[in-house]
């Protein structure tokens, strides 16, 4: 067995009689990073607090390094091996330097050792010039950097990060991703990382868990979760905005023809005629083109005719809603929109690769998260 740093068994947290967290099983190993994503109020911060021994679960047990926790004295020793960076950067009314040194001081680390480590992390997070400033006067992002430095300076066995980059500017965020991934790989730390940022979620770790209403809805590699979601909710949450149920009408070799509303599409795989399958499609994989030419069946590209109902800006691109009997969302560049002179009401063909269709397989639903028993999720 690998060395498990944290293990949760049948952990439940209740508040005012409501269950806000309900984890069957969760395990975290040395050198691994588990990213937790989920909607607001899903229980992510609660999970973090429970894992960090800051809050006792109503039921169940939290194991650290194989030992059951819950004994005050023992817990302190275990807490000294971890570091929590909370969602909000709560700063002591003291200088930034003192704030970052707080955890070291608790551990009796002072002198040149503390000076070196604190100085180092202030530098890495670009806040060395703020060392002498009262931390209560820092800007939102500066405070979050200080909060992050305060945790990282401890070089813990277990690192618990609750949206640590939410207030950072993008260049810093990017630089920190690279930095942090390198550090975490080098220093054999187990990390639990909560984020709302989809790119971040896929960047910082391979393992991902989706928490919803206090339950782990899906767990696996980030590819697994983002490209093979096991339920409509997860699919929607990870950005598969287009979800529809298809009725297989014909099977031919590795391809099948299916009916979605009044439209017909091609999908990959072997199916029984009459089967119903749930399909997910990311809007960025849907292109639009002017209506022209023939409609080919069972090809590698699906073409659905529809009418544009709305065009909305999305970053440098645009989100286009097309009514093909059912609404289909597409994200396209401004350029291609201009080239087509697309306007609401216009008839267009929405096209997407057959390979871009994801089958949402509810049978893969599972609630425990044990890396060792995880189904094989090798990437394509």
């Amino acid at each position, binding site marked *: 067995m690998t060395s498990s740093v944290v293990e949760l068994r049948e952990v439940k947290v209740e508040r005012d009689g409501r269950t806000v967290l309900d984890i069957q099983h969760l395990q975290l190993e040395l050198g691994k990073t588990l990213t937790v994503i989920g909607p607001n109020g899903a229980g992510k911060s609660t999970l973090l607090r429970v894992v960090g021994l800051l*809050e006792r679960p109503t039921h169940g047990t939290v194991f650290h390094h194989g030992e059951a926790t819950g004994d005050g004295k023992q817990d302190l020793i275990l807490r000294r091996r971890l570091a929590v960076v909370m969602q909000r950067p709560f700063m002591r009314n003291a200088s930034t330097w003192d704030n970052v040194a707080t955890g070291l001081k608790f551990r009796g680390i002072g002198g040149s050792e503390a000076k070196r480590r604190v100085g180092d992390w202030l530098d890495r997070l670009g806040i060395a010039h703020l060392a002498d400033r009262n931390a209560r006067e820092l800007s939102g992002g500066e405070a979050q950097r200080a909060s992050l430095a305060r945790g990282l300076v401890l070089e813990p066995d277990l690192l618990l990060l609750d949206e640590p980059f939410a207030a950072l500017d993008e260049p810093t965020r990017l630089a920190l991703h690279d930095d942090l991934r390198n550090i975490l790989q080098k220093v054999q730390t187990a990390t639990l990382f909560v984020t709302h940022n989809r790119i971040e979620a896929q960047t910082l770790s391979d393992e991902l868990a989706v928490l919803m209403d206090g339950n782990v809805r899906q767990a696996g590699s980030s590819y697994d979760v983002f490209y093979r979601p096991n339920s409509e909710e997860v699919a929607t949450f990870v950005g598969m905005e287009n979800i529809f149920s298809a009725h297989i009408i014909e099977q031919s070799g590795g391809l099948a023809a299916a009916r979605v509303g009044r439209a017909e599409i091609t999908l990959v795989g072997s199916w029984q005629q009459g089967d119903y399958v749930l399909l997910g499609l990311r809007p960025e994989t849907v292109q639009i083109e002017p209506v022209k030419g023939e409609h080919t069946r069972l090809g590698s590209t699906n073409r659905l005719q529809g009418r544009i109902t709305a065009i909305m800006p999305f970053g440098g691109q645009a989100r286009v809603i097309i009514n093909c009997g059912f609404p289909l969302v597409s994200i396209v560049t401004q350029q291609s929109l201009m080239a087509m002179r697309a306007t609401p009401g216009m008839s267009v063909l929405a096209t997407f690769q057959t390979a871009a269709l994801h089958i949402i397989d509810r049978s893969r639903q599972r609630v425990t998260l044990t890396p060792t028993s995880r189904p094989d999720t090798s990437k394509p």
Partner: protein
Amino acid sequence: MELIWNGIVQAFKLIFHLDSELMNILWVTIRVSGTATLVSLLLGVPLGALLGTWRFPGRSAALSIIHTGMGAPPVVVGLFVMIMLWRSGPLGGLNFLYTPWAMILAQTIIAFPIITGFSMAAVAQIDPQLRQQLLGLGASRIQALRAVVQEARLPLLTAIMAGFGGAISEVGAVMMVGGNIKGETRVLTTATVLESGKGEFGTAIALSVILLLLVFGVIVGLTVLQQRNRIT
């Protein structure tokens, strides 16, 4: 009004002449109230911090008792302490009655709930999530408590001032248990009462002014301390 003015003049005369009786009274006052405040501080701040952060059944009852203690009349405290310290009382063996020790005991009983109650209120006002964050950085429960107390240092200083003020300004209890014995247990308040009883209003006012100056001095000192510590 003229009386007050004369009193003020007399106060400064007494101070500048280093009047030996006054010096003795000052010394007893400072020793007794200083010790009582210190003891109350050492007991009250940790207890208050604990009550402010730790929720347990019966906490609200404990708070009500502390708060009642804040409003407990010094004369009542004096009466009870006196009865306890009587030769025939349960603590008679200590032979504390009519000594500064008895006064320290009484003033501690008066200042302790004030300091505890306000420490509690000060610490309870600190966001509990800050405490969680500190624990999450490896603080032991005691370290976290200490850090939270440090966060509340501004209102805590006010609590200390109030505790010291309550102790030094009290007269009913120290009169009863100290006896206002000249050269031994006479403090500024009891001396003021004595002089006022004798009809020596000038001296009484002089002593009042000196007492106020003493309190003011201590408070300005503490305030400067607080200002200096604002940004550590």
